[in-house]
């Protein structure tokens, strides 16, 4: 895999003993490819689970991790940082390390802002559909600001922003992967408590309430879990398209069940596997280029989902 080819026995040797015949190979595997694989696992499973939460929560098959407007918030944060600073005449994109951390921070701040706004509206508004529309409106609003910024910014800053928006699983050090892992773990733990009430929500909010589900608390918890998972993933890997929407559908079509006790772990694993496959495709052996991950997830994922829908003729939440 990737632009440097390493023999299989060396890979296993590096993983189990930490040594190999060529020193750079050790470095490539331990500090580049392994963290990348870990990131792929976290991103795939985290986004898949977020998508599952959102589809059940909104009872809508088109919902995905980003319907709350998280990616829009994140992209606004990053756009303000990368392009806004350029317009203001500051150019701290020259400091490589600083800029990477700054992008993560800017993205998190953007997501946090959206999360705050969504939480406030969720407390005030009774209807979940209204939340969906508010999420969409956030996307339009931030999209407009991002467009304005791109219009006025220099081409290299614009390119940097485009690269960010294409998503990337690589470039993360072990310490960054572990920070992301902590958020991922917290998010998934939260999800465990949502399994039972989400099952009740499948048959509608009124039924769920009559079964003893505290709707407001459920809404609050679901939004927080999605924000923790999706927000942290977007901060570290950029907005990864498609996986969050498609994996829950794939799993439902394969397993023919709606029970979250079964779906949650399988979506987790399915998301991780699909993301690892997409990552492998993006850096096929013998090819010098690495494709942007978003292009791969959509190019290869969309036809699969279309095929599945055509086969079963309908898509449900």
């Amino acid at each position, binding site marked *: 895999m990737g632009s440097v080819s390493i023999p299989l026995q060396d890979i296993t040797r590096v993983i189990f003993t930490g040594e190999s015949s060529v020193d750079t190979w050790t470095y490539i595997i331990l500090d580049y490819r392994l963290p990348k694989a870990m990131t792929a696992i976290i991103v795939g499973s985290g986004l898949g689970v977020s998508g599952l939460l959102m589809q059940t929560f909104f009872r809508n098959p088109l919902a995905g991790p980003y319907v709350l407007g998280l990616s829009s918030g994140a992209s606004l944060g990053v756009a303000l940082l990368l392009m806004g600073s350029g317009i203001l005449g500051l150019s701290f994109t020259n400091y490589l390390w600083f800029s990477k951390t700054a992008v993560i921070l800017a993205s998190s701040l953007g997501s946090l802002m959206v999360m705050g706004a969504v939480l406030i509206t969720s407390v005030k508004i009774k209807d979940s559909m209204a939340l969906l529309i508010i999420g969409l409106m956030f996307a339009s609003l931030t999209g407009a600001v991002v467009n304005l910024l791109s219009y006025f910014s220099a081409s290299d800053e614009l390119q940097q922003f485009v690269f960010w928006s294409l998503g990337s699983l690589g470039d993360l050090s072990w310490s960054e992967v572990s920070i992301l892992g902590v958020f991922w773990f917290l998010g998934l733990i939260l999800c465990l408590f949502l399994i039972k009430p989400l099952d009740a929500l499948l048959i*509608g909010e009124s039924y769920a309430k009559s079964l003893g589900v505290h709707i407001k608390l459920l809404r609050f918890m679901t939004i927080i879990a999605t924000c923790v998972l999706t927000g942290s993933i977007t901060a570290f890997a950029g907005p990864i398209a498609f996986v969050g929407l498609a994996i829950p559908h794939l799993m439902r079509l394969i397993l023919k069940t709606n029970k979250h006790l079964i779906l949650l772990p399988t979506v987790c694993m399915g998301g991780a596997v699909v993301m690892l496959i997409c990552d492998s495709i993006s850096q096929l052996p013998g090819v010098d280029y690495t494709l942007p991950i978003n292009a791969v997830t959509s190019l290869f994922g969309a036809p699969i989902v279309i095929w599945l829908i055509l086969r079963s003729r309908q898509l449900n939440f």
Partner: protein
Amino acid sequence: MRLETKQLSVGYNKPKVEVASGINISIKNAGLTAVIGVNGSGKSTLIKSLSGLINPLQGDIKLYNRPLNTYTVKEIAQKISLVLTKQRLPQHLKVIDFVALGRQPYTNWIGIHEYQDKNHIIKALKQVKMYEAKDKACSRLSDGQLQKVLIARAIAQNTPLILLDEPTSHLDMYHKAMVLNLLKSISTNHDKSVIFATHEINLALQLCDSIILIKDKQVIHDTPQNLIHSGILHELFPQDLIKFDEKAQLFKMNRI
């Protein structure tokens, strides 16, 4: 007293719309109670208010002699089960999984079914004669079968009160009678107070132990016989098309 209301007024806030007021209902024991009234008279609103889905505008609802608003949602779920009109159900939801949701008020935090939960689910399915179809997807059932499954979920919830919103809509005449007969047998054989909103006045008059009649925002709760003799049924609908025949105890079409 299982369920009691005093000077209850139901409706919606924002904008404030009062649908019915001065409602005094008392459900003492097991039995079958129909809520009847013309379209838009507030039957559904009353059912939703009694089950705690919406808050009443004024007055008290008492569940087992305790105000309803002092109960938590989980406590209500162990006293009242609810069957709503047709809802969109997920494609892959199996009959048995749908009925199993009725056990939610009793299961642990992750929803694992113990032996007695499974027992309740199987008993409920057998009671509505849908046990053989337990592995079918709900989306593939006929309207009549689906209604039975919806009722089975309420039975599995094992509550002393079952409230239903128009369980007979979308059904043919035979299945209407079948559903009402099923409700009657649940109420007599299993000590349950069943309250349901319906347009089937003729069937309700024959079958129910008591009737809640909503007319012009006023609510009367009495036995079918008392209602028939009071003459109020004559005024329920405009008289140009149908009339109440007191002898036959039925609404009939006017001869042309």
